């Protein structure tokens, strides 16, 4: 018991020493790190600075020219003056000039506190940061931070979306059925990504990579090319997708492959015949879930649906999608086949 009693003051003393050492590193200039941003993500950069005040000054100075050339930036307004730095009970209180709170961009204001907190929390022994502006407590100036209290950690950087979240986005945008949200990669996701890539003008490979992820995070629901009430289908030959539309809202976007060399005619047609299993006489092949809309040309399921026009004129669809189109495009449903870039 007595040993424990002795150990506590000893530990506190040791911590105080560590803090004092880092604060008084002015004499020799110690290695620390300051935090800047690259894109929206925080990045640590090494600095040799005289103690905690020196580190804060280095942060306020911002990235060097060479660092800026590498894409580093700081949200702290240039010329922000440091008024005071004190350390008590392992908490650093930084008093900054009013310039630190300049501007109205909420993301920038939040990020600059994040830079300061990250920089100081990286100092060994520091457990919290208090931010003061012109000697007072900033309230409401830095969204997300309650600076009436000691800040123990910066706001977490936005986490990358999970596969399940991306799949949900594909569903919400109309590129996939809700059954595709599994949290696991698979054929259904890949086909949905392919349809999304076609719609967005991205390389058509069906791979959910960073480029697709970024595009998904800013994508809006596809809109029909033409305006008309009721149920209808738009077939966009350039993008190689079919849109199932109801009252001007795109319900689903389907990955399709139309006729090679312009064999699918453009124009406005209607579904006039439907066959669960249709036999193609000229090509001697079965065409499941066929919805004919002009001559012998139909939407139907097919085993091979590449990302480019490949058929003899029909509209090939994935086996999973074709029954959905069959159910949607009842007899009489308008089908607009639209060529060229839209």
């Amino acid at each position, binding site marked *: 018991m007595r040993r424990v009693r002795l150990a506590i003051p000893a530990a506190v003393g040791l911590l105080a020493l560590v803090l004092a050492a880092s604060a008084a590193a002015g004499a020799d200039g110690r290695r620390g790190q300051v935090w800047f941003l690259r894109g929206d993500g925080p990045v640590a950069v090494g600095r040799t600075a005289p103690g905690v005040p020196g580190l804060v000054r280095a942060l306020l100075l911002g990235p060097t020219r060479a660092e800026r050339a590498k894409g580093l930036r700081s949200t702290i307004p240039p010329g922000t003056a440091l008024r005071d730095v004190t350390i008590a009970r392992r908490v650093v209180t930084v008093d900054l000039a009013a310039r630190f709170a300049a501007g109205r961009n909420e993301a920038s204001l939040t990020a600059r506190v994040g830079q300061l907190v990250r920089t100081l929390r990286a100092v060994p022994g520091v457990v919290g940061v208090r931010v003061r502006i012109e000697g007072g407590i*900033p309230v409401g100036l830095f969204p997300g931070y309650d600076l009436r209290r000691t800040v123990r950690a910066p706001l977490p950087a936005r986490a990358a979306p999970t596969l399940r979240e991306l799949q949900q986005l594909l569903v919400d945008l109309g590129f996939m059925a809700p059954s595709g949200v599994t949290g696991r990669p698979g054929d259904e996701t890949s086909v949905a990504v392919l349809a999304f890539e076609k719609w967005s003008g991205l390389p058509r490979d069906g791979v959910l990579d960073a480029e697709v992820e970024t595009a998904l995070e800013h994508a809006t*629901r596809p809109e029909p090319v033409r305006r008309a009430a009721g149920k209808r289908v738009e077939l966009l030959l350039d993008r190689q997708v079919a849109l199932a539309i109801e009252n001007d809202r795109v319900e689903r976007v389907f990955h399709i492959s139309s006729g090679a060399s312009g064999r699918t005619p453009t124009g406005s047609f209607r579904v006039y015949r439907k066959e669960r299993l249709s036999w193609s006489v000229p090509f001697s092949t079965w065409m499941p879930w066929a919805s004919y809309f002009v001559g012998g040309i139909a939407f139907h399921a097919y085993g091979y649906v590449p990302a480019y026009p490949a058929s003899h004129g029909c509209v090939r669809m994935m086996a999973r999608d074709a029954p959905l189109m069959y159910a949607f495009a009842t007899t009489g449903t308008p089908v607009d086949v639209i060529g060229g870039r839209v």
Partner: protein
Amino acid sequence: MRLRALGLVALTCLAALSTTASAGVAGAAPPSPARPSGLVVALSLGDPAMQAGVVRGGEVVLARGFEVGLAQALARRLGGRVDRFVEMRPAARLLAGAPAGWHLALAAIEPSRAARSAADLSVPYLTTDAAVVLRRGLTGPRRLAELRALVVCAVRGTPASRVVAASIRPTRSAVLVRGEDQLRTLLRTGACDAAVVPAVEAGRFVRGHARELGPVAGRVASGDGLVVAVARGTGVDVATVDRALGRLRADGTLGRLARSWLGLDPARLRVLR
């Protein structure tokens, strides 16, 4: 003669002492009856767009936001200026019935019975209605009846969600989500046709997302609005404040402040009935 001189000195000292003492409790003691040239305005800081600043010894310096701008414009209209801003926290203390240390309070105050009993309340300067933001590609609706047929979304447990249930009453199941980010995502992807948000936040909700979201279709009347509390016995007359607010509305100052800080002027939104 000597006695009179001594008395004068004593009186002067007393006066000086009392001045120092009252300066020492700035913001706590009731302000002297109306001297429009130096108003004390109470704030309750927190919302970056409405009012924010630096609290130093009970006073607010570097104050900014819609309500701060409005207080300054109001003071000018009343023929003076804001002498100082003071912070009262929690906001409920503003109207606790204690002697006010301020002339005016602008702190997102709604005209409740308690507020009325504690101070004189002005006419509303900002609506507390809910606004309807549409998904891209949707241009209507002009009436509540048209809104009912859409997929309407709101943040769960907020006044906006209560507006959905009580005023809009959609025929399709409303979608209630955890937060504003999720609400924006559902609207962007078209999973929601319309998002209901507080009108004062609608501008900020769409800011930076103009290409992803549709227009703000209008507002659904759901509340009285935010008012200025005028402390009694300080000489500032609520009728004068009302007139000044009317002029600020008429000359476009209120609208400019709203557009500048809130992104749009909620009063200009069409009321959906």
